């Protein structure tokens, strides 16, 4: 069920064809396929008939004005909206061909495959070591202390945090600086060895230097993980992603190669947004 008024408004504004999205919604080697995804918070229709694919080896940037449903879409990909009381999701999201909303999929197991990094760094109020080890512990990834040490060290190494914190693994993760905390959260996520990492504006609370470090890190991680990143910064989307999805008022407006979107947007809404006329 869609809210017709909203959809019509957007279509009317666009002045183009009624069919969304424009661009290239399919990926050659799809990892995540989204079909007819709708989401509601109570009476608010937050996502409206979203459908596109995210390929293996891809960094997809979700852009769009505030409240357009980027974060909702992201949270649909690891079923984190299940935890929200009045949220309702219909449609289909498949991960490697399996519908994650089918009854047979356990959201707990799903979230081990689809990790998430949040807008505000949110390390646990535990030691740095325990922060990284937590996911591995609850999923039983390490059979002994040495293996756990190994996981913790590799994860910290991969986010470039190991040399900064090697001597103080027992200190609280909350004592680190904002950028370090965010890298700790990324280390915590990759310690579980997911296939997909969802990032919800991971740099919005960080200074430019910390942001640059995270962006470099996303580049490195993209070799191994599918990354979906929500960002408000067009420059960041241009720097880190190879595909961009532009959303507006709960609808997916345009998807395509990053270079193409920024140089030659097909939809008027996309063009308005990236040139700074809306948003």
């Amino acid at each position: 069920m869609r809210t017709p008024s909203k959809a019509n408004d957007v279509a009317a504004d666009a002045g183009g064809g009624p069919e969304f999205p424009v661009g290239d919604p399919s990926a050659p080697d799809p990892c995540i396929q989204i079909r007819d995804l709708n989401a509601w918070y109570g009476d608010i229709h937050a996502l409206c008939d979203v459908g596109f694919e995210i390929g293996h080896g891809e960094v997809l940037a979700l852009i769009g004005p505030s409240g357009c449903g980027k974060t909702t879409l992201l949270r649909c990909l690891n079923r984190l909206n299940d935890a929200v009381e009045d949220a309702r999701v219909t449609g289909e999201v498949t991960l490697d061909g399996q519908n994650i909303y089918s009854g047979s999929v356990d959201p707990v197991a799903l979230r081990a495959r689809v990790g998430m990094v949040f807008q505000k760094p949110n390390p646990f109020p535990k030691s740095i070591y325990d922060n990284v080890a937590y996911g591995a512990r609850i999923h039983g990834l390490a059979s002994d202390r040495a293996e756990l040490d190994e996981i913790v060290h590799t994860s910290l190494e991969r986010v470039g945090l190991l040399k900064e914190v090697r001597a103080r693994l027992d200190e609280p993760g909350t004592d680190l600086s904002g950028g370090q905390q965010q890298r700790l959260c990324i280390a915590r996520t990759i310690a579980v060895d997911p296939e997909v990492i969802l990032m919800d504006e991971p740099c919005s609370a960080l200074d430019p230097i910390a942001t640059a470090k995270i962006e470099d890190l996303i580049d490195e991680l993209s070799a191994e993980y599918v990354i979906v990143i929500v960002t408000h910064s067009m420059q960041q989307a241009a720097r880190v992603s190879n595909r961009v999805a532009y959303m507006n008022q709960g609808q997916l407006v345009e998807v395509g190669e990053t270079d193409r979107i920024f140089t030659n947007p097909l939809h008027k809404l996309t063009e308005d947004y990236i040139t700074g006329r809306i948003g």
Partner: protein
Amino acid sequence: MNRVVESRLRRRHRRERTFRGLCVASVLVAALFLLVILGSLFRQGASAFTQTRISLPVPAMLPAGDLPDSGAMDYDAAVLDALAALLAIDPDRAERRELRQLVSIDAAFVLRDYVESSPGRVVSDASVRVPASAKVDMAIKGEFDRTAASDRRPLSDLQIDWIDRLVELGAIERTFNTALFTNGDSREPELAGIRAALMGSVLMLLITLAVAFPIGVAAAVYLEEFAPRRAWIRLLELSINNLAAVPSIVFGLLGLVVLIDWLGMPRSAPLVGGLVLALLTLPVIVISSRSAIRAVPTSIREASLGLGASRMQVVSHHVLPQAMPAIVTGTIIGLSRAFGETAPLLMIGMVAFIVDVPSGVTDPATALPVQIYLWADSPERAFAERTSAAILVLLGFLLSMNLLAAAIRRKVEK
């Protein structure tokens, strides 16, 4: 600056000063009340921590040489003989009766204990300190007017004369009142103590804690983390909040009907008292635990959900550990309230004259606040000071509970 703004600014500053002055005055008034209460308690109660004793020379009481078989001794008479010898009088029967009123009935037992523990023979210069009667205690502590007409004071002229003589002889001393802490209740003020009541209170609190803490925290976790936002849950929350305001005597009635009448639990038992107080404390614990759980940031829950933790793991690994300091504080506040509660205990028969220290949760017992109520009701002058002393002990207990709460909080927060 604009004149309007300037004149308004002056008025705003004046108002601010008035407001601050009122706040300071309120704090001062509150502090004054506290000082008055504590001051009067100390003034009345401090003397109860000492007890007047009369030291009697042993040779005057006991025949020299081998002690007789302790079972055959008339210790009562021996104490009176010693007093008479000390005062150098030869009392007739009426005087002996008056003399007997100077010492506590416990004096004979003290003497017997001395005889039974001494190694067979009496040391010639030994003396035994026996507790003075409450009347003498009051006289020594200056608690009544000696110049009043003789029928308006508890001691006769003769007895006052004897007391003065004993003081001159140096036979009277004031020592720390250990009986107050080692004895149960007694009809004789000088022998009455709070140990039985304190023990009853401690046993009850343990039961209250064991019952109310797990149930309260689990209920709070369910309501905050798992319960759907449905009408009946709202109703439940409303009822719990209301329960916190229900007069405590109602819980006592509930205990009487359900626990004693239906379930056949013993009357006056700490078990029943503890369960009733648990009911009383439960809403406080649920409410404080809920707000503690609510104060844990959502970002922590989402972080751990995002890593693939189950709802239960989120609660047990992150939410509860973070909420625990506030939960513990809330629990201890609830327990302090339960500790000072009297009314519900009246309903379940805990207002009783209990001499023996309870050794288990089903033994008859009373509680410290109830003991205070009982003593406050007693006509003897000497019980008045003991009432204040017991209140001081109660306050000390509450203070240490709150300090404990603060200490636990600081430790867990680290």
